[in-house]
């Protein structure tokens, strides 16, 4: 798909610093609370050396993918795109030995020599979660910090995947619409990353001093002293709203769990069990989207494994029903999420719990102000010039929705519809204006929830 339209790049709070590339740049599908925007046609990355401060203020040498104009981060910036869109990434190696940019099964830059700039172009693969990393001198360069997430959205993001299996479709259909999931459907803006790595200070120092050392020298005797989740540990990951989950009951969220490190971890969530949606192998480049959804309170994550988990944000089920909402105990209800292979809860050999830990915060009971608009179907029939779009909303019956041509809340209104009983809505109209933009938005009249830049199916 050619990208001649406006193209935006955003720094945002979708669970990590994030950037949208390709046509996805034109909308704020993921971005909570109106974040700043910048425009660029191509994502610019460089490989840089930096020092990473651990929770106890010890600084370790790392190598990172740094976005042009941004500060260094480890993991690198989260890249968002929409299935099928073209992605261009220009990568400069500012380190002293060869490196690479690699997404298994998707793109492989090959060697990028010191000082060299390489542009990789590829079409965003099937909707889901991917890891980009340096696969040269594996696993050393990756474990030194050269890694980050790529998220690909479906054209209609009712679930995180295109054509999900029946059980998963049923789960997303039920969110916000059945007695066991009161509240709202999944809102794609409710998206977090729990991205793991670990650090052995001796090995990091050795690699920084001798970047061409062999990977086996790096891994032999490797003994982690620090364990990070999305680049932070302990208190710092527990209280960073980009890492800890928060929301009211009835606001389900997606957590993309990824492991760039060398250790098999065991995430344990308190307060809610979570559904395992996928199982990815970021070595082979394969993902299984599950049709048999386990509901777990602990889930393994081996090196280069990924799992997308849906945290339902239900009322914690084992609170006595007559004591909900609690009277003496206060909101927010603050639960931990930690790796249960507990040596990962340490820093510098102790300092429990300054390791792989974050929190899960239930800010309050169901709030009717948390409404969501979701699109389940959008179709343009070219022969008849007809647009059909329909979906669900957790807003009150009678709420007026505006259907717009284009990818933003300020685009032209082409019609309105209302939320019916049962939380469904539908709109049928002429398709001419939508054809120009090839995307649609649905907004709430007078302000409120919106679903921007939905890509209709063309028939």
């Amino acid at each position, binding site marked *: 798909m050619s990208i001649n339209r406006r193209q935006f790049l955003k720094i945002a709070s979708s669970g990590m610093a994030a950037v949208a590339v390709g046509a996805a740049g034109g909308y704020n599908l993921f971005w909570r609370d109106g974040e700043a925007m910048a425009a660029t046609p191509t994502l610019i990355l460089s490989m840089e050396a930096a020092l990473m401060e651990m929770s106890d203020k010890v600084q370790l040498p790392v190598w990172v993918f740094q976005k042009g104009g941004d500060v260094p981060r480890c993991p690198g910036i989260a890249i968002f795109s929409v299935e099928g869109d073209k992605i261009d990434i220009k990568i400069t190696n500012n380190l002293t030995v060869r490196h690479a940019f690699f997404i298994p099964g998707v793109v492989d830059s090959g060697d990028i020599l010191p000082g060299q700039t390489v542009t990789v172009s590829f079409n965003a693969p099937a909707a889901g979660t991917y890891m980009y990393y340096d696969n040269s001198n594996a696993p050393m360069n990756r474990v030194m910090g050269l890694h980050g997430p790529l998220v690909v959205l479906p054209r209609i993001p009712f679930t995180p995947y295109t054509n999900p299996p029946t059980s998963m479709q049923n789960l997303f259909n039920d969110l916000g619409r059945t007695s066991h999931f009161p509240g709202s459907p999944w809102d794609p803006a409710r998206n977090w990353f729990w991205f793991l790595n670990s650090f052995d200070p001796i090995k990091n120092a050795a690699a920084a001093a001798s970047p061409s050392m062999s990977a086996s020298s790096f891994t032999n005797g490797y003994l982690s002293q620090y364990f990070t989740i999305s680049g932070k540990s302990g208190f710092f990951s527990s209280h960073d709203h980009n890492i800890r989950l928060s929301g009211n009951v009835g606001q389900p969220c997606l957590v993309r769990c990824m492991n760039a490190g060398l250790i098999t971890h065991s995430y344990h969530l308190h307060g809610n069990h979570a559904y395992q949606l996928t199982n990815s192998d970021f070595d082979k480049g394969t993902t299984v989207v599950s049709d048999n959804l386990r509901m777990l309170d602990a889930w393994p994550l081996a090196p280069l494994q990924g799992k997308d988990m849906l945290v339902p944000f239900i009322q914690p089920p084992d609170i006595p029903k007559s004591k909900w909402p609690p009277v003496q105990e*206060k909101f927010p209800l603050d639960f931990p999420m930690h790796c249960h292979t507990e040596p990962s*809860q340490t820093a510098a050999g102790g300092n429990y719990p300054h390791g792989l830990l974050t929190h899960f915060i239930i800010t309050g009971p169901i709030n009717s102000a948390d409404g969501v608009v979701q699109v389940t179907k959008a179709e343009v029939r070219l022969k008849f010039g007809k647009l059909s779009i329909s979906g669900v909303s957790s807003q009150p019956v009678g709420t007026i929705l505006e259907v717009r041509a284009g990818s933003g809340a300020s685009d032209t209104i082409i019609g309105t519809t209302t939320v019916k009983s049962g939380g469904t809505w539908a709109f049928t109209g002429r398709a001419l204006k939508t054809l120009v933009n090839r995307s649609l938005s649905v907004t709430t009249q007078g302000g409120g929830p919106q679903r921007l830049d939905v890509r209709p199916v063309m028939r």
Partner: protein
Amino acid sequence: MAVIPRDQGHPYDENDPMERIMFLQHGVAEPDSFDLIDRAGIVNPILLPQADGSPQPTDRRVSLLTPDTVAALQATLTPGSAPESYTLPTPDRIATPDRSFARTNVHGLTVPVPYPTKAGALAVEVWGFVDPAGAIAPWFPGTTIRCKEGELVHSTLLPKKGSHTIHHHGIEPTPMNDGVGHATFLVAGGGYTYQWLAPDAGTYFYHCHKNTVLHFELGMYGLLISDPNVPNAPFIDGGPGAVYRGNTIRNYHKEAIWVLDDIDSRWHETVQPQHGVGAGMGGTGVGAEFTTIGQNTGIELHRFEPDFFVVSGVFADPASQPKPNLITNTLVSPVMNRGETLLIRTLNASYTVVTLKFPSQIDPEVIAMDGRTFGRAPFMSYSRPFKLSTQNRQLTFTTANRWDLLIDTSSVPSGTHFVDAEFRHWRTNDLLRTVTMQIVVNS
């Protein structure tokens, strides 16, 4: 060179009292249940408010409890009374539970081991939990907590040797009833009663969540089982009993409990005795927020190299006959009459990655994981039970995972069938030990 700060994008404000409380609560100053009562310092003057009226850093309760509740707690104080004479009341307490448990912790006792420890001993200290009204043995793993789905449960911890907690793992009550030290509070001498509903029928466990890395390894855990709400439940460990398979109740004749654990004897005989129960927690030195790598020499809780492997408290012995590391204890390795149904509840309580390998004669059905039954409405209606043969009769699980396996022995040939448990290192994936359980089927 650019520095990536530890608080990148979300600056930590040391001058914000609530942020400071939360920071210190991560290891340096976890309040105990008495600290939550004694804000004004009538009994404990260390906890007086600061000069500007802002709360002391240990005063976590102002963010846990409503002001009325805090005021009521304070009214219970009597100057001069000993802290251990106070019991923190359970918030939103319901006076009459359907079932009550009490646990205290065991420490200072050793169990024999089949070969020498790293220090050359033939016994190792392990901690555990027991009912204070019952006999002391067995304490490792702790005495099972067994309840019936939907019951209102009061589980009281009466700690010894400092403060501890109970986290009822997989059960999801309010934070104060969740038993996580760094998120809420530790239970001091006066005790505390955790209040929760017995969860969906299934396999759970409980453990101490203070300095969990050490206390869990030292043995402070036990199984927790929620049985279906049927006559005669809760059942006796070992069976007979009943479970859900999907939405249907299935009876089983016997219940095998496989709690897989590993022990690094260094942690038990060096770290804990030489560095105390607080080893690995908080800063070292006056006002220190952290302990350095150098100061942690001799503690090193990131270094876990197990030398003993245990199933439900039974130590595997490489010299055992007829197979090395064979566990024959009948609670672990049942003897079945052909045609009977066996339920296996398995928990990985180790810090290694464990793979269970079943022989070709046995194809267990996986009916539940982590206390959630496949196919059971409403929350598990997006799933269905599956045969282990769909994944090569193997399952791999990590710390805290539970799998419930149902075996109909009518299709199993008579004889002795071995199930191997491979313990692999969390970092290297090296095979550390293969422990074998057996299922004997008599015709």
